[in-house]
């Protein structure tokens, strides 16, 4: 398996050759920031097209076809349009919070993106509480949504923000518990170690029953966390026109829009990290020849492929199910999903203690 760490450390040594240490770190930080932002934009554009095409195929349509071959350039045109749109400022809004909100949302999602393990040795920071950090940062996004809803001085946005707050805070519990279940199994929160622990086989196979249950809980909770159908109540366009971002225009709206798609990628990325081996290729114990062949596929491809697959499932949900109602959604979380996650956590602990796993 190719280790991208060789490249990065060589580049580091090269810079250290003629720069003092502080300058090296500075240069590296700038380069990484640019790379992360570039990845962010490209991925967001890809996701917008990905969803539009998928939803079109679900609905017996073709999707965007006019701009570029198969509509490939449509998203660039759309993004360019958003960039040149006027930022409308409204009467009687809380100016500061109104402008701050989209940045909070997008910052939290960029930070989360930066923490993901992209490939063997391709990681911005190796942090001993990595997954915990990601969860903590994801909560900042809720704040942005609440602020957006509050600062817009509009009844729709306020209801949307309230729904969003209730929803994201509730489902965060199940999401966290599903992740803790796997942490109990792996015994580490370090992202790098989590991936290497799946060298023999992915967690979803090693942890079998409790891991599969945790995976299912995670997918449901992640759909709710990203405000996607059937849990898209905060922006339920048929009730609240656009929910919390009704009053936003131009690139401020674009930030919400991009963050929404990137959050989809991020939760898929975490799912692939926690359950499907992250960038680790498919390894089956005993099949060494097969495992070697799998190792030839680059680790980045593995990570992206798994994430796109999980996103596909979440997109599939959205274009199949009707939207649930707020009371139904909350009772589903508090009455069914959270008790199940807790029970599953105990089950996993028992399995780990008794060694009933691979």
């Amino acid at each position, binding site marked *: 398996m190719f280790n991208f760490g060789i490249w990065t450390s060589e580049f580091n040594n090269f810079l250290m050759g003629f720069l003092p240490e502080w300058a090296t770190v500075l240069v590296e930080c700038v380069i990484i920031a640019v790379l992360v932002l570039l990845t962010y934009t490209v991925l967001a554009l890809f996701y917008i097209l990905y969803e539009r095409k998928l939803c079109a195929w679900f609905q*017996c349509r073709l999707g965007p076809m006019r701009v570029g071959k198969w509509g490939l350039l449509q998203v660039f045109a759309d993004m360019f349009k958003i960039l040149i749109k006027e930022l409308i400022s409204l009467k009687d809004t809380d100016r500061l919070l109104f402008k701050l909100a989209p940045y909070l949302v997008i910052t939290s999602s960029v930070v989360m993106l930066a923490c993901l393990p992209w490939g063997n040795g391709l990681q911005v920071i190796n942090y001993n509480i990595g997954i915990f950090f990601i969860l903590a940062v994801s909560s900042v996004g809720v704040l942005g949504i609440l602020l957006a809803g509050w600062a817009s001085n509009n*009844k729709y946005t306020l209801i949307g923000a309230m729904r969003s707050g209730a929803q994201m805070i509730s489902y965060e519990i199940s999401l966290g518990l599903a992740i803790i279940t796997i942490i109990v199994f792996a015994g580490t929160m370090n992202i790098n170690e989590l991936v290497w622990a799946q060298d023999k086989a992915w967690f979803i196979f090693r942890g079998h029953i409790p891991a599969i249950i945790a995976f299912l809980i995670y997918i449901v909770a992640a759909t709710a966390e990203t405000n996607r159908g059937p849990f898209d109540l905060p922006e*339920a366009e*048929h*009730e609240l026109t656009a929910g919390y971002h009704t009053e936003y225009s131009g690139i401020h709206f674009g930030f919400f829009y991009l963050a929404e798609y990137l959050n989809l990628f991020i939760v898929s990325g975490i799912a692939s990290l926690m359950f499907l081996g992250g960038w680790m290729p498919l390894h089956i114990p005993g099949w060494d020849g097969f495992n070697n062949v799998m190792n030839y596929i680059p680790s980045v491809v593995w990570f992206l492929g798994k994430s796109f697959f999980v996103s596909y499932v979440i997109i599939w949900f959205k274009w*199949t199910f009707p939207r*649930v109602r707020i*009371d139904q959604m909350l009772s589903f979380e508090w009455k069914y999903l959270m008790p199940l996650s807790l029970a599953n956590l105990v089950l996993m602990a028992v399995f780990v203690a008794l060694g009933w796993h691979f």
Partner: protein
Amino acid sequence: MSEIKEIISRILPSATFTEGDTLMVTVDEKDWHGFAKALKETKGLEFDVLSAVVGMDWKDSLGVVYYLTSTSRNWDVISVKVAVPDRENPMIHSVCDLWKVANFQEREVYDFYGIKFINHPDMRRFFLRNDWNGHPLRKDYDADPKLNPIPTEDEKNEDDTVSYVEDENGNVKAVPGKVFEEDEYVVNVGPQHPSTHGVMRFRASVDGETVKKVDVVSGYIHRGIEKLSEGLTYPQILHFTDRMDYMSAHQNRHCLCMCIEKAMGLEVPRRAQVIRVMMDELMRISSHLLSFGCTAMDLGATTAFFYGFREREMILDIFEKTCGARMSMNYNVIGGVIADLHPDFVKDVKEFIRIMPSRLKEYHKVFSGNLIAKNRLKKVGHLSKEDAINYAITGPSGRGSNWSCDCRKKHPYSVYPEVEFEEVLESGCDSYSRYMVRMKEIEQSCRILEQLVDRIPEGDIRAQVPKVIKLPVGCWYQQVEASRGTFGVYIESTGEKNPYRVHFQSPCFNLVGVMDLTCSGYMIADLITIGAALDFVIPDIDR
């Protein structure tokens, strides 16, 4: 009818009778409320449905013509005429305590004729702005733009209302009231909103996510069709009907044509009658498919919407081939239909009937069988049978409350008596029942089409009609079953070539009347669900 006449003359000796297509009873205003109560409650009369409220201006007097139906007595219809000579301050007793449907109907009459209804709880205008001068359907209305200049300021939310209350001594005084209290959190839904299915506006007072009260604000696309019709000849007013409930274009136009034909005593060729019924049923299927799609979309299931539209497209293609248009077909004319069927018609209809059952199964698999959809629709928007009758909620929405009210069965017209079909009834009284009635009615409409498609007789497609159509002096009322309920047309003629008064009694007007009743106590998301399941079309309300 003679029994009814007898009972009425016993109750109210001063009542006078006019025989027309329905029995018309003329009563004095001072007797009206007591008489109305007797009409509703006396055994042997029991007129429990107020079918239509038609405001009138007879130049020397203003008044109202009420059409009443008795569900227990074989759906007999009578009309009652109440007139007041006072043009300055006309007042008639309200009957909205007896028939709740009169609430909005009387507000419409007040809006257009300025007749104030005594004891009506909420005497605001219904369509026009509150600061409008004059009452446009009066014959002496001054349409000078100087009186009503184009407003340059936003309309204020008018929370003030007035009620004209009569005390024991018969003195009427105006009592001001409030629609919403100061501290209520009122969410505005519409007129530009994705799920009001047009430019409809609801003001919903909410407590958290729970809706407490819904106020309907209408008139954003009112075109004054009734006023326009008074200045046009009969063939000219036909095309308005396609533009009211555009999802019942054929049925509405069928109704107006039948009303005029009835007045002229014209016999329609059998071929035209069969074609008309087939078109009506195709229109009904198309409407119910749209309703399926929109209900699904309002609940967030966007994919099901496209599935519904895929099949609806086939019907629109059939319409396009024969009528030349997909939307406002303008197909029925007085005496028959405007053009003969396209050669492909029979083949296309057969193809449609063949594929539809499997597609319906697919809908149930994709949407109706889904647990989330069931949870969203079931036990939402309860409307009991009594309320449905009291609010005159006909059509699929009424039948979803287990009220057998199909005009095709109750007042059979055209070739409907000859075809076999069932009236679909559901007893759930909720949004799910209304939705299911529509889905099952698609099957029944296919059944009617199946029976007729091979039996379209040869012959003329329209009867000979005079070049200038004049109706004799009198008034006529005709009802048909449109896609959303009973659609009625009232024509009053003075023997001229244009009508003296045309009134369209649209089913959707009554449907919005129950929004407050059905939405109160449910959540904001349910308001959209209930609206989708009632399935009103706004141009039908704002005629």
